[in-house]
């Protein structure tokens, strides 16, 4: 299990993401910089007009992976707080699907951490996007997350209450 950083906000939600409020929350008095990334629904994809999107997630695992990203940021960048919120369900054009905010004393760490977070989220967090067009719907092309090639047979961890 990872350390929990008290002020971080890691969430999945089916409501509109309150980006402004989240960006304000991550800032403490010792911070001089807040970098944010807002991923929002474009009106086009691969040359076709998008009507709306739907996102679904393996929710428990997605939250675990998002928390891992936040822990990585705290371990590798001189940052203060992290907020990372992804929306699920139906989203209209212009709505925010993911919002990430990182605060720090100095700007380089906030920028680097924010970018690492969204790049890694897109590669490793089990969330799926379905795109709805006038003539049908498709699951978006995605990224294959890196997974172990072979198991270390001898010592695979047991399921929760080690029921064997």
């Amino acid at each position, binding site marked *: 299990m990872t350390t929990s950083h008290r002020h971080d906000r890691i969430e999945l939600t089916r409501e509109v993401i309150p980006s402004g409020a989240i960006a304000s929350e991550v800032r403490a008095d010792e911070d001089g910089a807040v970098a944010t990334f807002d991923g929002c629904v474009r009106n086009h994809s691969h040359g076709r007009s998008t009507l709306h999107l739907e996102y679904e997630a393996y929710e428990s695992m997605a939250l675990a992976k998002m928390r891992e990203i936040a822990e990585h940021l705290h371990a590798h960048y001189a940052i203060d707080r992290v907020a990372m919120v992804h929306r699920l369900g139906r989203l209209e054009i212009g709505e925010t699907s993911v919002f990430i905010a990182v605060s720090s004393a100095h700007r380089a760490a906030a920028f680097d951490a924010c970018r690492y977070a969204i790049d890694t989220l897109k590669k490793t967090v089990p969330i799926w996007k379905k795109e709805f067009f006038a003539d049908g719907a498709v699951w978006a092309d995605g990224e294959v997350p890196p*997974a172990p090639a072979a198991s270390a047979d001898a010592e695979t961890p047991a399921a929760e209450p080690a029921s064997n």
Partner: protein
Amino acid sequence: MIVKVLYFGRLKELSGSSEESVEVRDGARIEDLFAHCSMSRPELRKFRASLVAARNREFAAWDTPLRAGDEVGFLPPVSGG
């Protein structure tokens, strides 16, 4: 032993369910579970190359041995963000 299987995205649509409990032999690995699940849903097989498996909410190799009560997800390429 019984394990839980989860399907997401296009796999959920193909398999017609998001979750099922499956009985597998002791010593079975994730790849055996996938083979079992594909028997009744042959369309799953053509996605095998692009899937990643998760065991108890962690990415896992296909040769990972299963234990009773494990939660296994077959994950299509992810597209969050």
